[in-house]
């Protein structure tokens, strides 16, 4: 063991690593929020399809050097099967198991009509414009 020790304030290898992880998080580009019209337009989206997703992924195999289609001697391409299985399970979990917990922001505009006969006002109404909220996938 060395006679003269390194001062405690210089033992910072873990802090160095934490700093770099912090920079990695800070510099990522956050996904922008969608506007209300863009959100409402989402009604026309076709929905997830495991088959289309699988074929899109397989179409990009060449970019990374994975062979697509049947292999030599007609062997099944296990990577394609593997991709298909993964996509099917993920899409199934999203469509059948996933839950989105939503909280709407305050301040939605409401129009209501009602009357009272000398007591508390009873009104019936509806929101008049789309309003924002935040959902968290579970």
């Amino acid at each position: 063991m060395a006679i003269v020790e390194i001062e405690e304030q210089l033992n910072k290898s873990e802090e160095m690593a934490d700093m770099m992880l912090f920079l990695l998080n800070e510099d990522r580009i956050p996904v922008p929020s969608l506007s209300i019209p863009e959100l409402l337009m989402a009604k026309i989206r076709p929905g997830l399809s495991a088959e289309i997703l699988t074929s899109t992924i397989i179409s990009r195999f060449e970019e990374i050097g994975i062979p697509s289609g049947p292999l030599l001697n007609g062997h099944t391409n296990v990577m394609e099967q593997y991709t298909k299985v993964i996509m099917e399970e993920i899409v199934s979990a999203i469509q059948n198991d996933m839950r989105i917990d939503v909280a709407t922001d305050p301040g939605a505009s409401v129009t209501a009509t009602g009357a009272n006969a000398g007591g508390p006002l009873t009104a019936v109404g509806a929101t008049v414009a789309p309003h924002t909220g935040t959902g968290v996938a579970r």
Partner: protein
Amino acid sequence: MALNIPQNRPLTDSQKEVKAKIGSMKNILALPFRDNRNIPKSRQISLFDYSLQLMDSLGIDQQFVFNSFLEKVLDKTNILEENVVSSTASSLARKGVKLPDTSPVTNDPRDDQIESFKQNNERFLSNNISSSFIDKKQLSRELTLMLFGDRNGSSSSNMNISQNRRDDLINEAVCGVNTFSISSEPSERNEDVEFNKIDLRKQLEKGEVKYEINCNEVNIQLPEDPGTVLDRRDDGVISSSSVTPAQSLQKLTKFVGNEARSIAGENNQNSVGKTFGRTLVEKFVNYINTLVIPYVDTITALINNSKPSNSPSISRSDIAVANCELSNDPNNPEKKEFTKKMANNLLTELLSIMVVTILKEFKTLVANYFARTAIERQKRKAQKMLMKFQIFSQVGENASKAQKFASALQTLSPILGNETQNLV
């Protein structure tokens, strides 16, 4: 006996699924738990070693960083002098001395007193001493001797190092092997430590340094006149006044690399060159106590000229203790104070350069990475939207499926020609 023909009873999908899930759950439970290691600080990798690993991952040239450190400390700033002043102030403060009076205020100062005395001493010394009192050129020569020894007894005289100083330097190089380490410490048995010291003394007395390259021991010697390496300008002329101290040490690093290449082959040149660059910086920090001790006399002269007449005189050994004496009394905090401050302050300078370089490079890498992946994502999205727009721009939003199909098919009309009609 009746013949039993086993019947083929294949499993249904849900039966197969249950068996597969049982198997996978049992496998997952059998896997060892991910161990979240909580390693105590004292056993973690040193910041110096970790920074070297990060520099390798980021592709930063280590020698460039080491050169920056040597230039900063030896050529461009008075950090070395400031550290000697600061370490002296700290060493005297620990003894309870508050300058200009050299009589201790108290023989056992508290921590807050030590800090207050230190600040006072530092102020006093900084105001009264010249800013550059260290001969860094000579310091670089003495470091060279401590690294490569005295070849044929003539290297020292060629570098203007007296016989007494030469003996001191070699003794201190041997004693100082375990004084301070900026790397995570290797585990060394006591008997190996003594053997290594004896071996090192032999190498230094002979003027040869051994390096291991691919399990081959390679001996590297400096010329009898190391000035031909240290003081050689880029145009080949030997001129001591034209080459700075940091440049001398950089030339030494290149010389060792070239020697290794000629001895052990092309492939090994960089491995020894880089290893020596790191060794040089490590030894520079490790031996800094020995290298600056002679200049403590400048400070003691100032103190003794300024003290009250009835106060005791201060000598070099009251401030800084040589490595050999330290190794005989390793647990004495007063004796270690000067060396501890010098070595740690220098290490701080080195680490700050390394960390700043790493963080700058890492930030650039991260920014480029996220920008590039975001651009690629946007490009793909834009291409898909453009394709959709090109296909469906001719049909209204409420077009039927058939109309959309017909529109999409138009893109293939040069190939399909009249067959397009049959497909709609």
